[in-house]
C-alpha cells in the first residue's frame, strides 16, 4: 500500500463510516418499528382515529384452541407438524341481522364453537345444540378451518368444514340446526387441507367449492405408514395435497372437476381467495402455497389457466400463508396480500403486496410486489391478514397476525430448522431426519401488525399504540362489524391460544356505509343467494373503492359477508355500483352514509 498518509486516514474514516451505517439506519428506523409505543386509548383515538380493546371474556367467550396429538412417529416434531388448525369465520347463521362467530378446534375429541350473537355485547356457544361442535372425533381427523356459503340457495348459510381428515358439509336448517350431508354431496373420504373457499366459478348461480390440499390426501397423520410426509423442498415442493374443485350440481350433489377444468397442482396450499381481477365477470382464483410459489388461475367461466409466472406473482418462491384482496389505493383495483416468513438474521422472505402495474389490465395484467414500498413487508412469521378500514378514514388498513411456535422463550429451534431446510430433498422430506423440538420456540411470542393506510402509498404499524399487544401464535383473522355500530371489529384465532375479540372504537367524525347483498335466485339468473362474488364499487369525494363479497379469504378465515366502507369526514357519496354475479349492474345514487343498506338483486 503506497498511498499517502492523508488518503489512508480518509480511507480508514470511510471504512468506519461504512461499519457505522447499520447503526445509523437502525436508529433512523427505530421510531417506525414495533407498532409505535403503547399509549392510552384516548391518545390512540386522537392520534390514529381508533383503538382496539380485547373483550373476549367480557363477551362471554373463553375459547382456547388445542393442537392435535399425531402419530407417535411425529412426536419429536409435533409442534411443527401440528402448528395449524385455529380458524375463525363469520356468519349470520340464523339471519337475525347480527353476525355470529364459528371457530375450529384441532385436538381429537375437542369441540368447535359457534358463538351466537346475543345482541347485548355477549355471545353464547350454541355449536353443541346446532350439531356442529363434536366434529373432531377419533378416526375422522380434526378441523382446520370453516367457510360458509348457501350452496342450495335456501337463504341460510351452510357450513363446509375444512379438516385434516374427513371433510364435512353441513346443511343449515333455517338457523335451527345443521344436518350433515357429506355423503350425499359426494365429498372424498379424506383431505388434509387448510384452505377452502366458496365461489361460483361457472356463473350458474350455484356455489362451487375449492379445497386446497396441504399434506397429501393419502396420509393419515394419526396412523402413518411412513415418515416421508414432509415437503421435498423448502421452496420448490410439489409433493403436497391435491386440489379439489367441487362443482355444485344443484341437487345437493357435487362433482369433482379440478383436473377437467385445469387445476392439477400438488403444491402445498395454505390460502386461497377468489375475485374478478380482470373485469371478466368470472372470479379468478389466487392460491398462496407454502414451500413454493403462489398460483394465479384465470377463469374463463369454464376452465382455469395458471398464469402466476406470467402475471408476476408466481416466480420467486416463498412460504405463502395468506391471500387477501384489497383496493388499497382507491382505484377500483385489487391488490393481493400474501404473508411469508421473516426472522431477523436468519430468513428474510418478506411478505408480498401484489399491486397491479400501471397500464396493465385484463388478460395481460401484471403485478409487482410493493410490500416494501408500502411498508407492509416485514411481519415476522406471518399468518392471517385482512384488509379493512379500521378507522373509517376511507382507506383500507391491514391487520396481520403472526408467530409460529411459542414454547421456551429462551431456546430457539431456528438453528435446527435452517440446518435441515437447506438440505437435499431426501433429507428434508423425511420427518425422522428433523431434530427433536424439545420444547424450543420457533419465531414465537411475536408482536402483531396493525398497518394504517395513509392513502398515499404508505402503511404505518400502530399495533401497540391502538391496543393490539398480544403475542399469541396468531393464525386466522376475520373482520366484522360485530355489534352493528358501523365499525370493523377484529376476531383472531390463535394456535394453542385463546380466541381474541378486539372491539373497535372509532373517533367520532369519520362516517361509514355498509352493504348487505342477497342474490336473486328466483329466475336462475346466475347469482347465488349469498351473493358471493358480487362487487360494490363506491364513488365518493372523487374517489372509488371496490370490495367484494367473499367466500373465504386470509388464512383459514372468512370475513363478514356485509361490506363495510369507511368514508372519512363529510363525505359526498355519488353512487354505489353493484356488480351482481349474474352480470347485472345496479346503481344506487347517493346512498345515505352511516347506514347498513340491505340490497336484494332486482329481478
Amino acid at each position, binding site marked *: 500500500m503506497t498511498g499517502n498518509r492523508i488518503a489512508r486516514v480518509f480511507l480508514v474514516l470511510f471504512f468506519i463510516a*461504512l461499519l457505522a451505517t447499520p447503526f445509523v439506519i437502525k436508529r433512523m428506523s427505530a421510531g417506525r418499528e414495533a407498532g409505535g409505543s403503547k399509549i392510552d386509548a384516548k391518545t390512540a383515538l386522537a392520534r390514529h382515529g381508533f383503538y382496539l380493546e380485547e373483550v373476549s371474556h367480557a363477551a362471554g367467550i373463553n375459547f382456547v384452541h388445542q393442537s392435535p396429538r399425531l402419530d407417535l412417529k411425529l412426536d419429536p416434531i409435533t409442534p411443527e407438524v401440528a402448528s395449524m388448525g385455529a380458524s375463525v369465520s363469520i356468519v349470520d347463521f340464523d339471519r337475525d341481522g347480527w353476525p355470529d362467530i364459528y371457530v375450529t378446534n384441532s385436538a381429537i375429541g375437542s369441540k368447535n364453537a359457534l358463538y351466537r350473537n346475543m345482541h347485548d355485547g355477549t355471545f353464547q356457544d350454541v355449536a353443541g345444540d346446532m350439531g356442529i361442535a363434536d366434529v373432531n372425533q377419533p378416526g375422522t381427523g380434526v378441523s382446520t378451518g370453516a367457510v360458509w356459503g348457501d350452496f342450495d340457495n335456501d337463504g341460510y348459510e351452510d357450513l363446509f368444514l375444512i379438516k385434516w381428515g374427513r371433510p364435512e358439509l353441513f346443511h343449515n336448517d333455517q338457523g335451527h340446526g345443521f344436518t350433515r350431508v357429506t355423503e350425499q354431496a359426494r365429498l372424498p373420504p379424506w383431505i388434509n387441507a387448510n384452505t377452502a373457499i366458496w365461489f361460483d366459478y361457472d356463473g350458474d348461480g350455484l356455489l362451487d367449492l375449492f379445497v386446497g390440499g396441504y399434506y397429501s390426501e393419502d396420509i393419515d397423520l394419526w396412523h402413518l405408514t411412513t415418515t416421508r410426509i414432509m415437503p*421435498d423442498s423448502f421452496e420448490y415442493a410439489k409433493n403436497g395435497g391435491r386440489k379439489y374443485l367441487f362443482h355444485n350440481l344443484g341437487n345437493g350433489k357435487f362433482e369433482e372437476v379440478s383436473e377437467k377444468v385445469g387445476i392439477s397442482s400438488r403444491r402445498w396450499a395454505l390460502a386461497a381467495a377468489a375475485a374478478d381481477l380482470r373485469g371478466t365477470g368470472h372470479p379468478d382464483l389466487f392460491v398462496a402455497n407454502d414451500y413454493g410459489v403462489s398460483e394465479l388461475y384465470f377463469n374463463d367461466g369454464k376452465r382455469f389457466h395458471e398464469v402466476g409466472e406470467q402475471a408476476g406473482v408466481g416466480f420467486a418462491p416463498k412460504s405463502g400463508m395468506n391471500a387477501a384482496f384489497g383496493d388499497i389505493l382507491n382505484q377500483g383495483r385489487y391488490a393481493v396480500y400474501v404473508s411469508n416468513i421473516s426472522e431477523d438474521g436468519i430468513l428474510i422472505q418478506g411478505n408480498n403486496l401484489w399491486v397491479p402495474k400501471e397500464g396493465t389490465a385484463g388478460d395481460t395484467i401484471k403485478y409487482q410486489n410493493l*410490500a416494501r414500498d408500502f411498508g407492509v413487508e416485514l411481519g415476522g412469521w406471518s399468518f392471517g391478514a385482512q384488509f379493512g378500514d379500521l378507522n373509517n378514514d376511507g382507506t383500507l388498513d391491514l391487520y396481520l397476525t403472526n408467530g409460529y411456535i411459542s414454547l421456551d422463550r429462551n431456546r430457539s429451534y431456528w438453528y*435446527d430448522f435452517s440446518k435441515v431446510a*437447506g438440505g*437435499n430433498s431426501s433429507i428434508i422430506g423425511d420427518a425422522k*431426519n428433523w431434530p427433536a423440538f424439545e420444547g424450543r420456540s420457533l419465531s414465537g411470542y411475536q408482536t402483531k401488525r396493525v398497518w394504517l393506510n395513509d392513502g398515499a402509498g404508505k402503511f404505518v404499524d400502530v399495533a401497540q399504540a391502538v391496543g393490539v399487544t398480544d403475542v399469541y401464535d396468531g393464525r386466522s383473522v376475520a373482520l366484522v362489524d360485530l355489534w352493528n355500530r358501523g365499525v370493523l371489529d377484529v376476531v383472531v384465532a390463535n394456535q394453542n391460544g385463546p380466541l381474541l375479540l378486539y372491539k373497535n372504537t372509532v373517533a367520532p367524525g369519520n362516517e361509514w356505509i355498509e352493504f348487505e347483498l342477497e342474490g336473486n335466485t328466483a329466475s336462475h339468473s346466475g347469482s347465488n343467494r349469498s351473493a358471493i362474488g358480487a362487487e360494490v364499487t363506491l364513488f365518493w369525494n372523487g374517489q372509488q373503492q371496490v370490495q367484494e363479497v367473499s367466500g373465504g379469504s386470509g388464512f383459514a378465515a372468512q370475513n363478514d359477508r356485509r361490506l363495510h366502507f369507511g368514508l372519512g369526514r363529510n363525505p359526498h357519496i355519488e353512487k354505489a355500483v353493484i356488480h351482481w354475479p349474474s352480470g347485472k349492474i345496479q346503481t344506487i345514487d347517493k346512498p345515505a352514509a352511516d347506514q347498513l343498506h340491505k340490497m336484494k338483486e332486482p329481478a
Partner: protein
Amino acid sequence: MSQQTSAPVFPPQIQPPQAPAHRNPLFGLDNRYIAPAFITCILLAGHLSFGILESYQKTLLAIITSILIELVLGRIFFHKWVHPASAYITGISVGILIRSPAFWPYALCSAISITSKYVLRVKDRHIWNPSNFGISVMLFLAAETVATLSIQWGNYLWPMIVIWTLGSVIIWRLRRFHITGIYVASFIALAFLRSWMTGSPWQSEIAPITGPMYQLFIFFMITDPKTTVRSKSGQCVVVFLVALFEMVLRLNQIVYAPFYALFVVGPAAMLIEIWLDSRRARAATPTVAQ
C-alpha cells in the same frame, strides 16, 4: 472469494507461487476469468431454473458497487486501474449470498468487503477474504435486515451434482482442490461426531453441506489464494481448523457457523504465517548481508 487478479503487493521474497494463471486455459478461457465465469453460470442457471434472485437490481447493485470501489481505491492506492475480476466475484457473491428486502445492504456489504482489503492489512497483505468479512459484518451489525442464502436453490440432487462436478474440475485446474476436499471430508466426519454428541439425526447434520450456500463457500471462499496460507500442508491444516471451529459454533447453534469460522480462523492463520515469514526474513538477513 477468489482474489486471483488483485494487484501484486507482496515483496519478492514472499510472493506466492505463481498459479498457472495465464497458461493452460480451461474451456479456452484465461484462468483469471474461469472463476467469474463459473459463478456467473451458477447465478444464471440458478435464477433461470429456480428464480433465486428476487431482484436483478440488487445483485447488479452489489456488483457495480464492488467494482466501482475497487477501481477508485486501486487508483488511489496502487496508482493503476485494478483488474475488476476480483471485485466482480466479490460483488456477485454478495449479490447471491446476502438476502434482504432492502437495497442498501447489498451496496453496503460490497463496499465493506472491498474496502476491508485496503484497510485491514498486515505487512501489506489483506488477511480477510473480502466477501466473508463483509457478509459476517452485515450478519453481526444488521441482523434485522439481512440474512444469507440458505434455501433458494431448491433441494434437489441434479443442480447440486452439476455444481459440484463443474466446481471440482475448476478448482482442480486451479490447484486448490485439496482445500475443498479436506474441508468436505472434515465436515462430514465432524457431522457424524456432532450427531453422536447431540443425538440429532446424522442426516440433519449432513444436510447443510448439500445446500447451495455451502457450494459457494466451499468453491470460492475457503479457496481464495490471497487469504489462505501458502504451503499446501498449511492450507490443509487451516481448512481442517475452519471445519473444526465451525463444529464448535454449530454445537452452540450458530446459524452462520461456516462464515464465522472462516472469519476467525482464516485471518489467525494468515497472521501466524506473516509472523513466521518475518522471523524467517530476519533470520535470513545476516546471511544475505554476508
